[in-house]
């Protein structure tokens, strides 16, 4: 079989291969060290970090749905300081590029978080989760309004010393408008998609299955929506580095996302199904390329015949 050059560059960031793990589905990576060859991956995206630790939402927080799951973890995390002190040592040494997902409840929290995280040695890039309720705007998510998102991104990019990717929510009428606003504001990459807003009900108890009523839908169920959004954004902004997320389970899925325009790939919910899923995806993607005579994985990017 052909040798395949798996290296990619996502904006300013060079990665040994395109396969990463998605925020919130791989903890701080150390949790998987026993059963997953983390160092083989192009990168890992950490659980979303905020300035202060957060306990997260009331329980129950997860439930299963058809070929997917809902979660309302509530962005529970150890907080920036404990992250730097306790989680970075493993991450720094794991062999995969470290992308730190982060968020705030106010603009200034976002900016401070971006600035401080980007100073931590070993952080290769940041991923801004803008699907977070803006407490000053009555809880409307930053990520649903291109103007608000654009301003926030600009400030975070200015404050950070490393590339800032922006993670977009799919719960919008026009993801391309949001993507454009973020790119104009200096986003070093776009991660798409976050979870779809959904709900589950227990008909017998007549209660929502999640304490917060609503949760984020992830898993294979959402892959068609993710693929569509990656393609739409790539078509509108062919140069934008895109990190594709959503129901990714196999090397073939990975190839599909690259054909649609992605540069990197994030394995999410599948890590729960198989803790070494991302490494298998990487291997299958390499095999897919080799079998098809693709010598550089990046040759797949945007190569959809459409």
């Amino acid at each position, binding site marked *: 079989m052909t040798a395949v050059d798996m290296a990619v560059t996502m904006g300013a960031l060079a990665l040994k291969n395109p396969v990463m793990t998605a925020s*919130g*589905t*791989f*903890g701080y990576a150390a*949790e*998987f060290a*026993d*059963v997953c060859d983390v160092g083989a991956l192009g990168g890992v995206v950490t*659980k979303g970090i905020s300035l202060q630790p957060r*306990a*997260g939402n*009331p*329980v*129950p*927080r*997860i*439930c*299963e749905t*058809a*070929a*997917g*799951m809902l*979660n309302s*973890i509530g962005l*529970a995390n150890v907080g920036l300081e404990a992250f730097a002190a306790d989680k970075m040592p493993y991450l720094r040494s794991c062999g995969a590029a470290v992308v730190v997902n982060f968020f705030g409840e106010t603009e200034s929290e976002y900016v401070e978080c971006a600035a401080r995280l980007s100073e931590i040695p070993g952080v290769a890039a940041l991923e801004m989760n803008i699907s977070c309720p803006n407490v000053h705007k009555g809880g409307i998510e930053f990520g649903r309004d291109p103007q608000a998102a654009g301003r926030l991104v600009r400030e975070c990019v200015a404050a950070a010393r490393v590339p800032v990717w922006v993670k977009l929510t799919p719960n919008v009428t026009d993801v391309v408008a949001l993507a454009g606003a973020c790119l104009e504001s200096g986003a070093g990459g776009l991660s798409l998609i976050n979870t779809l807003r959904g709900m589950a009900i227990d008909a017998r108890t007549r209660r929502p299955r999640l304490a917060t009523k609503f949760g984020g839908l992830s*898993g*294979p169920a959402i892959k068609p929506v993710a693929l569509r959004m990656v393609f739409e954004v790539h078509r509108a902004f062919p140069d934008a580095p895109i990190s594709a997320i959503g129901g990714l*389970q196999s090397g073939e899925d990975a190839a599909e996302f690259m054909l649609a325009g992605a540069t990197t790939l994030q394995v999410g*919910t599948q*890590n*729960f*199904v*198989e*803790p*070494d899923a991302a490494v298998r995806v990487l291997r299958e993607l390499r095999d897919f390329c080799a079998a098809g005579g693709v010598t550089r994985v990046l040759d797949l990017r945007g190569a959809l015949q459409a």
Partner: protein
Amino acid sequence: MNFIDAGVVAREDLAPGYFILRLGGCEALAGALPGQFVMVRGDWGRDPLLPRAISLLEARPDGMAAILVKTVGRGTALLSRATAGARLRVLGPLGTAFPAPDAARQDLLIAGGSGVPPVYLQAARAAAAGRADRVEVFLGGRTAQDLPYATGLERLGVSLHLTTDDGSRGQRGLVTAALERRLDEVGGRPRLMACGPDPMLHAVARIARLRELPCLVSLEAAMACGLGACLGCAVPARSRPFVYVCQDGPVFDAAEVYQ
């Protein structure tokens, strides 16, 4: 902890709705302690998606392991169809365990329904250490049909108290009533260790609190990862906002998670 490709060696049907799967190729689980569990999934495609948390009933050095499952929904129904030769992906052993039997004190182990495995394994551990006499097991169910693996427990030679709500086997009434009667008899400060439905654990925790006895409970919560990564299996706790069943548990000090 390992992620194993295990093979079903045999399925034993117990009372209706309960079955045991004996698995081969599980050398990596050997030494798993009572209360520890695995995340299990068959090769059944993308729906249901998540693996299921199941306690270990046995994990032998020769690679034979066993789980005891109650069929409740789609995942366990799929497991119930597994026959010899089926492949399962198994992640484990995971989580915390009951403490080792102690020559100096009596342990009263309480199980209900699919909560039998940790209690069985704990009793087996005591028996193997020559301390069968330090352990008594209370197993309760609605009817004689709901006392899965009572035979297994009997074989261990530990003292076994069976209860059924309808009196169809053992004493009539709740397992906690039998426990209280026994506590009245034995006196001293035995440790309680319980695994079973939430209301049962709640009642056991209450008994322990009122009598000021040490008490450990093995909890269940919906899980996605089993690894402390998804933060889905949170349970409100006393010492901090939440503990995570897969990592901080499933075995907890009852005072930490009840009341």
